[in-house]
């Protein structure tokens, strides 16, 4: 198969009917979810709207103003109308600064004040206008990012994606620059453990994280500035990514857009399965966050790779594919074109087994072939790595090889110290040297190799696709919520009303007002 970027990968004949049916089923899976989403909003969505309208920064005690305001509205049961409306009301009543708006919202009477229809219309018009202006400004920032990217160009695919995770944004910057100089194309700043569970976005530059660095607007800004600088010095545009995941998906997507990030980890199910976040909440948040990504031209990276860290990669291969169809359908419904849908998968089969390359190749090629226009994100082995860094390195190299032969779009580089610590500078350097070599050495092999008709690789790919279809049939029949309840993905079961953050899901009033959503949906 010839890829858009000119690379070739081995042809993998697949049953087009089966593929078509998977897409239909995925659409059927998303329909009822989106119907639910369209009837609800969440605290995080509402905070996002307020942030767009200028309510950034934190109040006394470090609580973000947007949280202060939305919590007050929620407590009073006023959120169903949309925070923007209340923002408009405060503006109309003379509030000047965002802090002032927050204060006014906090001092609203317990029962909602009545307003005249004309005042209502004015409020909506006023805020819609503000929103349009804010979105225009956002688009400007995005255009600047795209300008620099066009000017400098990105490296050839696969883009080498490396993580930094010192916990301290300034150390992260030093590490990111070093990684870029050594050949990284994408820098991912890993978040501090459990930021997913925070129902607010921390403020400011941070220097104390565990297993990662907090995702904050200021940290985004600092890193993007450093990467802009480094991009110019290297003459190659460096991409930046972070996580739009957890309880603040939409807000982080927005802040990332403002700070010109290029990609975001953003999955429809990750938070549910791996962070025990309530599924209603996550599914509302993911939709809104993806609409923002669509607006800002941010590539989303889905998290199917995670399933095979808890489930067995051999047995659960089809769950990855099924989930990708679902993630794709959700993404399309949120207005993301294929080129922004970075579906995730991984090289995670237990290396103690036989013929793992045949199956890894089958899986990687299957994903590549099913989603030809998506910039597939390929994760290296992680789960089966132990402390033997030499073995781990050899194992990573194999993932580099499969990535090269199957034309992956975004290639995470495996770390030989995966089982020990967040990567040190030398770990990344070692990984990049090997990836450079593999990339060079295997350059044209994707176009040189063919698969034996009906052989192990083809048969495995066909079987996986088939099982994915069967799973999708079940999920479409029973509904996504029920399927998750039966541990169909990642071997993890979650209940519809369990998990964290359900309280933050609010039914929209009939007169619900979300001018940002209106704009996003109008695109």
């Amino acid at each position, binding site marked *: 198969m010839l890829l858009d970027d000119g690379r070739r990968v081995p042809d993998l004949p697949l049953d087009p009917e089966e593929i078509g049916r998977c897409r239909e089923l995925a659409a059927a899976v998303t329909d009822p979810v989106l119907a639910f989403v369209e009837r609800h909003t969440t605290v995080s969505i509402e905070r996002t709207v307020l942030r767009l309208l200028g309510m950034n920064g934190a109040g006394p005690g470090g609580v973000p103003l947007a949280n202060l305001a939305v919590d007050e509205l929620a407590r009073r049961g006023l959120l169903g109308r949309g925070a923007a409306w209340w923002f408009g009301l405060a503006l109309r009543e003379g509030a000047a600064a965002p802090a002032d708006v927050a204060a006014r919202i906090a001092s609203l009477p317990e029962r909602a004040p009545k307003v005249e229809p004309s005042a209502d219309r004015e409020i909506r018009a006023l805020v819609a206008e503000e929103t349009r202006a804010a979105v225009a400004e956002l688009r400007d920032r995005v255009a600047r990012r795209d300008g620099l990217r066009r000017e400098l160009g990105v490296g050839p695919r696969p883009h080498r994606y490396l993580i930094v*995770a010192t*916990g301290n944004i300034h150390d992260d910057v030093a590490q990111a*620059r*070093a*990684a870029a*100089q*050594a050949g990284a194309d994408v820098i991912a700043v890993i978040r501090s*453990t*459990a930021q*997913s*569970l925070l129902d607010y976005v921390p403020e400011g530059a941070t220097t104390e994280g*565990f*297993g990662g660095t907090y995702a904050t607007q200021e940290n985004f800004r600092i890193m993007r500035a450093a990467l802009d600088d480094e991009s110019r010095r290297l003459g190659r545009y460096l991409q930046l990514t972070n996580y739009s995941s957890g309880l603040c998906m939409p807000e982080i997507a927005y802040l990332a857009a403002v700070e010109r990030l290029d990609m975001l980890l953003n999955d429809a199910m990750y938070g549910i399965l*791996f*962070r*025990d976040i309530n599924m209603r909440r996550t599914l509302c948040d993911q939709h809104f966050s993806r609409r923002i990504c669509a607006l800002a031209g941010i590539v989303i990276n889905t998290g199917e790779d995670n399933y095979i*860290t*808890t489930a067995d990669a051999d047995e659960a291969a089809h769950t990855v594919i099924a989930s990708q169809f679902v993630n794709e359908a959700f993404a399309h419904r949120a207005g993301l074109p294929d080129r922004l849908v970075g579906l995730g998968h991984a090289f995670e089969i237990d290396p103690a087994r036989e013929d793992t390359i045949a199956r890894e190749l089958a899986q990687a090629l299957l994903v590549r072939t099913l989603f030809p226009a998506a910039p597939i994100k390929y994760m290296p082995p992680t*789960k089966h790595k*132990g*402390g033997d860094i030499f073995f781990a390195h050899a194992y990573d190299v194999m993932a580099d090889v499969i990535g090269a032969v199957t034309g992956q779009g975004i290639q995470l580089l495996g770390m030989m110290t995966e*089982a*020990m*610590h*967040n990567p*040190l*500078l*030398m770990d990344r*350097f*070692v990984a990049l*040297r090997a990836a450079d070599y593999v990339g060079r050495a295997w350059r044209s092999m994707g176009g040189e190799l063919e698969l034996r008709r009906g052989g192990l690789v083809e048969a495995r790919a066909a079987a996986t696709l088939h099982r994915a279809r069967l799973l999708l049939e079940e999920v479409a029949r029973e509904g996504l919520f029920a399927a998750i309840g039966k541990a169909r993905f990642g071997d993890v079961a979650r209940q519809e009303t369990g998990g964290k953050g359900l309280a933050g899901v609010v039914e929209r009033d009939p007169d619900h007002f979300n001018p940002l959503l209106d704009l996003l949906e109008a695109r």
Partner: protein
Amino acid sequence: MSRAPSEAGVVRPYGDRRDDGAVQLSFVLPLEAGARAREAATAIARQLGLEQVHVAAMERAAEGFTFFVVYARTAAAVDLGALEVPEVTLEHRGFDELNAHALRAVGRRIVVLGACTGADAHAVGIDAIMNMKGFAGDPGLERYPCLDARNLGAQVENVDLARACGAAGADAVLVSQVVTQRDVHRRNARDLVEQLERLGLRGRVIAILGGPRIDHRLALELGYDAGFGPGTRPSDVAAYVVAEVIRRRGTGPGP
């Protein structure tokens, strides 16, 4: 010719001749590569007491950073006799035998709670120990008739876990810690012990710590009764828990 090197006396690293002291080292220095950086790397190795220092690789890793690979010899030697080796001693029995033995000696099911605590969301390790399915073909604690094993999952707050121990009358609590950056696991593991103490439960509950960067020595240091590291099997934990419960009741030989 003796086949296996002796297990007593003094041992030193072995490259290709007994006691040659060969070690490999790698590190990064915040310096540009060059003669000076090479000298600096050599000096670092010498400060580690290494001899015959050979800087095998010096590569520019980034602006102002150089990666080194060093081979050298050390005179370091360990007197095995003088080594203190804290070790969980396990007497392994067959699955059925252990269950029969435990039920006979204790007269009821032993209550075991497990969780991955704090912000740590890595459930795979504690699941491997506790869930039916188990690990590497070894069934998990939930499968043992002699145990009443309950896996509370991940992201469990210490205070909630301590309370649950009280409520369930737990005999043992299994704590998993996987994220260790900047010693977050130490703080978090110690905190659970404090919570148990605050509730007056520490004496009654066998506290067990586990995870890929945990060992018995560290667990003892953090106030636990035992620690289990990478590759632990559920049957190791079952053997330990049963023996320890029986030992504490004074109804059988301790571990």
